[in-house]
């Protein structure tokens, strides 16, 4: 399974309704999505759930087709309760699951083909001790989490795993060979997140 994820720190000053640009919603959400932002009490969380759904779906779409670009309005989101969303982009469909707390949301996306709807990728969210970290800390720590996750799936010591980037997409290598676990990284404010799944093996039959 190919996965994408996005974590959002809901208390980050830059994400507050008064901090974002007044035309932000118009720029990134479709009219149907904006209709879900009319209730003041729920708008903040809903805004970032929909954003995280778009971004996590983009990360999957980009792995499937390196030519895909992140034009947010073209990733249309249909929220299905508080835990799920369906995202459409061109002919592709994505299934997004959410988890979160009072001050954060994490979206995990996979391609939706109707067949493996019951299989879910794994995920992990970590709160940075002591508040927001530097970009360097966030990148290094989220990679350490990814090495542990990939290592636990494949029963390999994390120290043997290297996280590299191919065309900006992070991949896991061991002795320069690609490991069969797909994963996605995200960091924002006080949160770091990894989602992962064993890549499908082609059947020999």
């Amino acid at each position: 399974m190919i996965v994408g994820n996005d974590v959002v720190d809901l208390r980050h000053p830059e994400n507050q309704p008064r901090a974002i640009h007044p035309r932000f919603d118009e720029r990134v959400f479709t009219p149907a999505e904006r209709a879900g932002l009319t209730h003041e009490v729920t708008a903040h969380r809903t805004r970032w759930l929909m954003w995280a759904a778009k971004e996590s779906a983009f990360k999957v779409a980009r792995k499937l087709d390196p030519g895909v670009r992140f034009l947010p309005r073209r990733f249309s989101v249909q929220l299905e309760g508080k835990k799920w969303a369906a995202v459409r982009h061109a002919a592709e469909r994505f299934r997004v699951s959410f988890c979160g707390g009072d001050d954060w949301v994490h979206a995990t996306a996979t391609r939706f083909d109707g067949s493996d709807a019951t299989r879910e990728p794994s995920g992990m969210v970590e709160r940075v001790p002591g508040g927001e970290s530097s970009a360097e800390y966030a990148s290094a720590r989220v990679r350490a989490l990814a090495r542990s996750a990939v290592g636990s799936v494949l029963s390999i010591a994390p120290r043997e795993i290297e996280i590299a980037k191919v065309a900006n997409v992070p991949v896991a290598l061991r002795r320069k060979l690609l490991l069969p676990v797909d994963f996605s990284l995200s960091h924002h404010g006080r949160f770091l997140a990894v989602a992962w799944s064993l890549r499908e093996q082609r059947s020999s039959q």
Partner: protein
Amino acid sequence: MDTSEIQAKVVEIIGRYAKNKEAAATATETTNILEDLKVNSARLVDVILDFEDEFDIEVEDDDADAVNTVGDAVALIQSKVA
């Protein structure tokens, strides 16, 4: 407005959203906005909207997507204000 004035304004706007403030202070036209300045994707939307307000231009989604570096932003704005 000449190129250096546009560049100074572009760097100032991006600097508001850059996580890497040191790199923002020394940004040149080849500086990558996401990779070097660590502007996240939601803030990149605010950057584009601030360009629209500051330079009184409209930036289409396709144009916005082609902006990777400070130089790309300056070239885009120059083509719109000309």
